C-alpha cells in the first residue's frame, strides 16, 4: 500500500475499504449470506437501498474486470458488521459465494441513494422479488424500529427460494407467493399487491424490471392520483459506481439520471417505462 492511499483513507476521502469475511451461511435457497467486518464509520453510513461495489476476483487477475454492486441486507454498527445476500448467478457472485472466513474483500461504498420514509407514513407495503429482498429487509427493520406497520410481500420460484421469516422483525406481516404454489399464493408476488394498496401510505419495491412493470400495471387503476407513493430500486450494470461513466442511467421525466448516484432508488412515477 502506498503512503498516498493510506493518507486518503486517513482523511476519510476514499470509499475503497477492506472488509474481513467473518461468516458465510446459506440463506434463501442457494444464496449465501455473507457477513463482513468493515470500519465502524462505514457501517454507520448505511441506509436501506445503498450498496457496495465489490471486487469479485483474486489479486493480480483482471477478469472479471468490473466490480459488482450488492445491496446491504443488514448492518450492525456496534459490531461494525455488514451483511450481503449473494445469489449465485454468474462469475462474480459465484466467486463471492465461495469466499471463506478470514478472506479480505475490496469494497467501494456505500454508494447510491436510499429509500425515503415519508414522515407521516404509518403503513408501509414492501414488494420483493427474489434476491431483491436485500434492501427491503433492512428497510423493514428500520421501519418497525420507528413504530411503523409493515406488510412484506416476497415472490420466488418455489418455497425453497423464500427468505426464512426469522430474518424479518416479528412485527412484520410477511406474505409470500411462489410460481409453483409450493408455498403461499400461487403466482406472481404482484398479484398480492391490490389487497394492500388502500391500506398503504407508501410502497417500496425491489426486484427485476418485469416485476415493476406488472406492479405498475396493477397499481394504475387503484391509485388515487400518485398516492400511495411508490419507490423502486432500478438494477443497472455499473462500471464506476460514482456517476462518472454514465453507463448506468435511467431515463426519467427529468432526463437521464445515474442509478449509482441519483439512484438506485427512483420514484416510480419519475421513471419513463
Amino acid at each position: 500500500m502506498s503512503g498516498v492511499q493510506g493518507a486518503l483513507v486517513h482523511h476519510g476521502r476514499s470509499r475503497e475499504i477492506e472488509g474481513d469475511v467473518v461468516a458465510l451461511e446459506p440463506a434463501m435457497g442457494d444464496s449465501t449470506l455473507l457477513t463482513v467486518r468493515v470500519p465502524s464509520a462505514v457501517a454507520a453510513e448505511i441506509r436501506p437501498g445503498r450498496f457496495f461495489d465489490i471486487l469479485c476476483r483474486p489479486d493480480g487477475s483482471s477478469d472479471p474486470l468490473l466490480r459488482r454492486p450488492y445491496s446491504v441486507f443488514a448492518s450492525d454498527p456496534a459490531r461494525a458488521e455488514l451483511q450481503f445476500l449473494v445469489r449465485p448467478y454468474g462469475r462474480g457472485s459465484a466467486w463471492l459465494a465461495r469466499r471463506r472466513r478470514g478472506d479480505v474483500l475490496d469494497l467501494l461504498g456505500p454508494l447510491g441513494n436510499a429509500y425515503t420514509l415519508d414522515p407521516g407514513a404509518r403503513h408501509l407495503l414492501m414488494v420483493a422479488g427474489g434476491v431483491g429482498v436485500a434492501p427491503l429487509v433492512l428497510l423493514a427493520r428500520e421501519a418497525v424500529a420507528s413504530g411503523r406497520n409493515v406488510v412484506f410481500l416476497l415472490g420466488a420460484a418455489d418455497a425453497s427460494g423464500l427468505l426464512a421469516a426469522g430474518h424479518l422483525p416479528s412485527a412484520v406481516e410477511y406474505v409470500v407467493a411462489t410460481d409453483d404454489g409450493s408455498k403461499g399464493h400461487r403466482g406472481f408476488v404482484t398479484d398480492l399487491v391490490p389487497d394492500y394498496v388502500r391500506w398503504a401510505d407508501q410502497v417500496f419495491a425491489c426486484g427485476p424490471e418485469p416485476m415493476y412493470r406488472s406492479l405498475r400495471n396493477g397499481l394504475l387503476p387503484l391509485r388515487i392520483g400518485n398516492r400511495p407513493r411508490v419507490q423502486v430500486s432500478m438494477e443497472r450494470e455499473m462500471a464506476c459506481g460514482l456517476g462518472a461513466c454514465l453507463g448506468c442511467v435511467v431515463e426519467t421525466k427529468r432526463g437521464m439520471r445515474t442509478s449509482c448516484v441519483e439512484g438506485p432508488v427512483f420514484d416510480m412515477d419519475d421513471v419513463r417505462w
Partner: protein
Amino acid sequence: MTTMWKGPSRVPEPEDPPGPDLSVDLAPGNPRELRLTNPVIAASGCFGYGLEYAGVIDVQTLGAFVSKGITRRPRSGNPMPRIAETPAGMLNAIGLQNPGIAGLIRKYPRIWETWRVPAIVNISAESVEEYAEMAAILDEQPGIAGIEVNVSCPNVARGGYCFGWDPGMSAEVTAAVRAATTLPLLVKLSPGAVDIVSVALAVEEAGADAVSLINTLVGMAIDTRRRRPVLANATGGLSGPAIKPVALRMVYQVAGSVRIPVVGMGGISSTEDALEFLMAGASAIEIGTAIFVQPSLPLEVIAGLEVWMRAQGVENLGEVVGAAHPAGIPLRRSHAQVAS
C-alpha cells in the same frame, strides 16, 4: 525548472529528501505550456468532470484530468444498455451524453479555476468547422489548461468515415483547431487507422502540441439468450487491460517517429503498466477504465512511480521515456534535461 502550470500538488514536508522530478510539459512548443507535476492523467469519459471523484480521492494530486467528451450541443446519449463486460475489458456505448459546450462552460470552468490540477477539455464533433468553433469558445474560458481533440468521430461530410482513420482528415481538424485557439492542444488518435504513425505525423505537422493514444477499439458482445447484441447500439468501444498490448505497440511506434510529446493510454492498471508506456515513449499516461475499478489507482501510480524512481536512482522521468527503444527515440522537450 520552469514554473508549474499551477502550484505543486503537495507541499513537501521538511524531512522529505529531495524527491525525483516527475514533472512534464505536454506543450513545450506552446507559450501557454501545459506543465504537470506528474505524468498521471485521468482519461476522458472515465472521470466525469473531476467533481464526481473530488469527494472520493484527492483530485488535486493528479498530473491532470480530461473531461468527458463534449459536443457543440447537449446530447442525451444512447439507449441502455450502454456497457458490457468482456474478458479483462469492457465495452461502452455511452453515446457522448453531455451538457454541450455551453452547459460545460456554465458550470465547470469557475470551479476548475480554483483547482490546482489542470483540467483538459475533450471535444468531439461531426465537422471540421464544429471542432474549430468549440475550440474558439474554450480559448477564452478560465480554468481550462488544454484541449484534447477526439478525432474518433464520424465525419458527416464524408459519409461518416472516421476523421481519425485518415491522416489528411485528422490534420485538417488539427489545423482548424490550432487556428482557433492558442491553448495547449492534444490530438487523441484512433486505433482504427491502418497506419497510426502517419496520422500522428500529420497532426504533428498540422500544429498539435502533443498526441494522446489510444482511444477505444470498436468491439461487440452478443447476448445469446436474446440473440441480439448486448449493447443497444450494437457496437461499442473496448477499453481496459485487454487492449493494453495494442495500445502499447501503437505508443511505441508513434513515439519512435514524432517529436512532440506522446500521452499513452489503454488498459493501464498499475505502476508497472505506466512504466511500460513511459518506456515505450510516452511522456505522460492517462488512466481510464481502471479508475472505475479502483478510484485511488492514479494516486497509487504517482506514488509508485516516485518509489520506483528512488529505487532505480532515476532523478528525472525523462530518463525513462522511450527507454525500451534499442536505438532511442527522437528527442522531445517534455522533460527537463538531465544534468550530466
